[in-house]
């Protein structure tokens, strides 16, 4: 009891000098994924209640050690002083303007349904498995990233979100292979090593190859098996869909 009161006390009492010094540290170490002012990107938006870091000890632990299974590295060791400044800055966030530009989440849900998204994505147990599951995508990605994923999906292929493939390799990377006997297969890369590669095609069929048996392997970096919705949806539909995806926080 005493401990939790103390923790809340510490959370509330941030030193303005720490916040000021924490900002450049955050911009160097964290903004690449979390966005400047923590508005999110490849990593979550931090301008919201941080469910994994409800007290400062938890936040300190996340910054110190990372969340390797969630794709967050420990960028570098920090001194206690630097850590205090980073915590102070992250706790000061929440005032930055949200980059969800007026979209309507409820309308976005309808856009999701009628655009066929569920044929490739799972939300709350329903949908296809060609693309990544989206059940808690709103707590994993910032709105800008989600909007870009709709407009130019190949530019923001996920990495570091799945246990397979490891080593932060691009996930769902389209790969086209041609076997030595002329058979062509295109699919998303499931896994790869120096000598073998595993693909899943758009019908859900698994293909496993030894590279020595292939005449051609074309990794289509910058592309995605998902079509761009730039011309299929209006600007307001993209905003609505972005707002809905941003609201997906997973099971409570």
């Amino acid at each position, binding site marked *: 009891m005493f401990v939790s009161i103390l923790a809340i006390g510490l959370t509330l009492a941030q030193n303005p000098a720490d916040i000021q010094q924490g900002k*450049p540290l955050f911009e*160097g*170490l964290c903004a690449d994924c979390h966005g400047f002012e923590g508005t999110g990107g490849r990593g979550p938006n931090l301008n919201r209640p941080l469910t994994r870091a409800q007290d400062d000890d938890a936040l300190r632990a996340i910054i110190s050690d990372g969340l390797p299974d969630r794709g967050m590295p420990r960028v570098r*060791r920090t001194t206690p002083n630097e850590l205090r400044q980073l915590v102070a800055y992250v706790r000061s966030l929440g005032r930055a303007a949200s980059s969800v530009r007026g979209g309507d989440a409820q309308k976005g849900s309808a856009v999701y349904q009628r655009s066929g998204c569920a044929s490739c994505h799972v939300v709350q147990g329903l949908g296809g498995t060609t693309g990544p599951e989206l059940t808690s995508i709103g707590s994993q990605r910032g709105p800008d990233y989600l909007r870009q994923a709709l407009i130019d999906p190949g530019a923001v292929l996920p990495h570091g979100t799945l246990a397979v493939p*490891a080593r932060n390799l691009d996930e769902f990377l389209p790969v086209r292979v041609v076997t030595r006997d002329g058979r062509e297969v295109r699919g998303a890369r499931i896994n790869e090593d*120096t000598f073998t590669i595993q693909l899943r095609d758009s019908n859900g069929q698994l293909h496993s190859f030894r590279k020595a048996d292939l005449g051609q392997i074309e990794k289509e970096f910058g592309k995605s098996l998902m079509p761009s919705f730039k011309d299929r949806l209006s600007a307001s539909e993209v905003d609505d869909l972005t707002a809905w995806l941003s609201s997906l926080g997973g099971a409570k």
Partner: protein
Amino acid sequence: MKAAAVLALVVLIGASVFAQVPYRRIASADTDPSSWLTYSGNYQAHRYSALTQIDRQNVTQLKPAWVYQMRNSGIVEATPIVADGVMYITEPPSTVTALDVRTGRPLWTYTPNIPPDVIIIGSPPVNRGVAVLDDLVYLATVHTHLIALDRRSGAVRWDTVVEDNKQGYYMTLAPMAIDGKIIIGISGAETGIRGFIDAYDAKTGKRAWRTYTVPGAGEPGSETWGGDSWKNGGGSTWVPGAFDPALNLIYWGTGNPGPDWNGDVRPGDNLYTCSLLALDANTGKIKWHFQFTPHDVHDWDATEIPVLFDATINGRARKLVAMANRNAFYYVLDRENGQFISATPYVKQTWADGMDEKGRPKVRPGTEPSFEGTLVFPDITGGANWYSPSYSPKTKLFYHTAREVGTTYYKGEADYKPGTAFTAGGGRRMDGDVAFASVKAWEATTGKMAWDFKLLTPPMAGLLSTAGNLVFGGTEEGNFFALDAENGKPLWDFQLGAALRANPMSFALDGKQYVAIAAGSALFVFGL
């Protein structure tokens, strides 16, 4: 008659001498390829096997002979030692196990009492193997003990405290046994230790000499440290070196200065960090030094394996030492006097515009770490790291797992407190599809590229070359593989199910050749 007498004598010597591992047997390891008597296979650190049974034709038939599952989880970086039918391995963090080479069944195991609050900052809690000499097996532990075990039972013959772990000193390396002495180095530069190389009497464990890698006040080289910065100057020595019995010189690489990524608090070249030292084996006296990376701010330890070989350069026979350095350059030096001969970049690098005539790098401005981050190649773990290269006296090629990665380097606050991290920054490594490695082969004498074989991601696995014209290596994705030593063509691979973060070695039993390497928490032994 005479031949028969010589043969009888050889058998007799074999019978009496091979019951143990005397110094002269290690010194002539090249004539005994059935054994693997020291970390790198021989004192010249070639990691080369003269065995020819497994070759380019039959390597496709390699199969597991046995597998040993470690008692403890953790990364296994150990190279086994094999002598007289017994394999000695270490398990993380500091356990020694003796295995029956024929079956893989344990004969004994020894685990020291490691305090739960042991301080290990700067690496995972690993161990790279033991040394053997006469009837003893030598272990360097994470709680900074050097321990001698009886090779038959694992009983402790002596146990010497090398340094105070509370200050951040710890050990991960395989010791090196020479004539009557055990040579060790130390880890801990990430806590601001003062590095050293020690020699201990092999029979008693009494320290014979200590040579600090950072000179004290007033000693030669101390002028390369501003103020009192030498006191926490780092210079770890965490990978075993090489030894030239004829010159009686030990060659040992030294690690980064402390703190790692903020050099402002230690102005100067910071001798003898990121250097190769040649030490008199009797006294530990530094005969010469060569500093690869003066005033390092990227954590480019020079703790890679120094490889000794002889070659003719410009018509002159030279005794050479070569190192594929973490800073992306392959260096060739004269090992009698430390004279610089050449430095050739072997992976992408963006920090130096070559070397001056003495081998000092011409550092590009703007490549030092910064608070907002500075992207530099090679990466924070370097173009090379602790894992071993291989040199084949047959092909005269130097083989190396060359890491092609960059890092965004950050400078941080320097804050020394004993036994805590003193790193002052760090880095974000490139990863995913843009980070890779290649097994590369180049002419050992000139650094001229012969071939390369691309690996999907950069591993921490070393190489073994063999007289069967093979190069064995491993990947982070679990592949154990063999390449043609002459052209790099892949000939065989086997999925071991977990990352290989170890070095391969080879030995023979009952006339049959085996290759062994660890992957995950297991040791795999392959034969035909």
